[in-house]
């Protein structure tokens, strides 16, 4: 019941959309009715268009993000743990972190062409630094007393790294990954809109150019929902992973 009250504004918005389009307050070209969008969605699901394009987008995003998490976390922890690594990489990270990642889209296309490779590279490069900075700040903030006690009880450097530094770096690192997750969606969709032959972003551009706006709205809402759902699932997972804290 309380959930209904809470999300009532969204239902009202949806109803206003339907009414505005049906009554012709807004041209149905600019805003096809929500029910027509839903029909187009079902139609695309049935023809498999949504599934095949969705699968290739998901593969690109997933592979790029996974690479970014593994390499980014390793880099961040290495920077916090070995001073020379920090001295060598710190200035580079600081310089590239504020760079608008969208600038990499043409370059990755120059290197790897129109296919999966350029998107995976783009998402990897674009999402790596937030993870690195999260891992670095987390690992640097690990309680020095814990490190010392572990050392004095005879734990080797690698064991301390794994058992003390990694867990204490986890919360900030997971926050960095959440930023990376949002970035991955932005980079995926926009790179597919600019250079691709398939994928959900490409489908949106194609349908928009064709003028089949009801189908375009259906794909736009699908991608928006996927981004929202991915964030919610990730937050639940994060809560699980951090359940050991208090």
């Amino acid at each position, binding site marked *: 019941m309380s959930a209904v009250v809470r999300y009532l504004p*969204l239902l009202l918005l949806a109803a206003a959309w339907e009414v505005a389009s049906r009554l012709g307050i807004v041209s149905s070209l600019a805003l096809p009715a929500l029910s027509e969008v839903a029909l187009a969605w079902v139609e695309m699901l049935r023809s498999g268009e949504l599934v095949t394009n969705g699968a290739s987008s998901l593969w690109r995003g997933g592979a790029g993000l996974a690479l970014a998490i593994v390499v980014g976390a390793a880099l961040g922890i290495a920077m916090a743990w070995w001073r020379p690594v920090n*001295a060598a990489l710190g200035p580079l990270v*600081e310089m590239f972190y504020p760079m608008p990642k969208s600038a990499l889209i043409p370059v990755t296309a*120059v290197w790897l062409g129109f296919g999966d490779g350029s998107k995976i590279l783009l998402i990897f490069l674009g999402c790596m630094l937030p993870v690195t900075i999260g891992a670095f700040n987390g690992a640097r903030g690990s309680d020095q007393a814990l490190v010392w006690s572990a050392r004095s009880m005879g734990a080797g450097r690698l064991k301390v790294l794994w058992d003390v530094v990694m867990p204490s770096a986890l919360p900030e690192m997971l926050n960095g990954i959440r930023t990376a997750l949002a970035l991955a969606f932005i980079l995926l969709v926009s790179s597919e809109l600019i250079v691709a032959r398939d994928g959900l972003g490409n489908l949106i551009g194609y349908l928009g150019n064709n003028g089949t706006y009801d189908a375009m709205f259906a794909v736009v809402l699908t991608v928006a929902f996927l981004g929202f759902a991915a964030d919610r699932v990730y937050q639940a997972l994060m809560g699980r992973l951090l359940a050991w804290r208090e």
Partner: protein
Amino acid sequence: MARIAGTTAEPLPAGTGAGRRALHAAGWAMARAAPILLLGLAWEALAMSGTLTFYQLPRLSAVLVRIWTDAAAGDLLLNTGVTLYRALTGFAIAAVGGVILGMAMSRNAAVRWLFDPIVSVGFPMPKITFLPVVMLWLGVYDVSKIAMVVLDAIFPVVTATLSGIAGVDRHLIWSARNMGASRSELLWQIVLPAASPQIMTGLQVALPVALIVAVLVEMLMGGYGLGAAMVHAWRFADSHGVFAGIVEIAVVGYVLVKAMSLMRRRLLLWHQEALAPSTV
């Protein structure tokens, strides 16, 4: 915005003169610039070695020459100006609108009821997907580009304002009320200043987002601007132009983010965070 600290200067030996201190600072600046110079040299060497074609990786020196000619022709200034205009206008609208919306939501139950689900569902969505829709409604000119920037940059500001106001120390508010502060005095003299560090953090998240989106919409819709120039160069297989674009966009991003964190330090000089070792 997390900054890679950890390379703060080591304590100076007691009794050093101003000259030695300047030398020390210069030494540190050089130590920090060394990795960047090395990267530049490695780029040049890799491009010269012939393992990659000049299309895949033009020489850094050639790219710098290209940037220089663009600057001399006035293109660079025009494109940078246009991109900055779109990003900063959108950012300003998002900043003012976001703070006002956040304030309204925290003061008024009806406003909160209306916007809370929209904000919590809209924040994690990839708003860039709505670009074709915004193009359909507003065309391909500045209005739709700035609208996209606002759409993306406003969410971090709203949520930061909300949580900033929610986190204001109750005792501050009670004491102010007790001393007879009116509602508007309470808002302007107590609540907003106390929430300002968090609002500032929200703005610091929103600024790079604004720039990312400004470059993206230029890439997608064309017109002038750094993003559009880059995609234009790429369409004509002019990879010098592409790499020049990357360098220019990276520099603009770096300068903006730095300026923002300097501004934070200035504005929040009165706050105790200014005394703490800065990670921002």
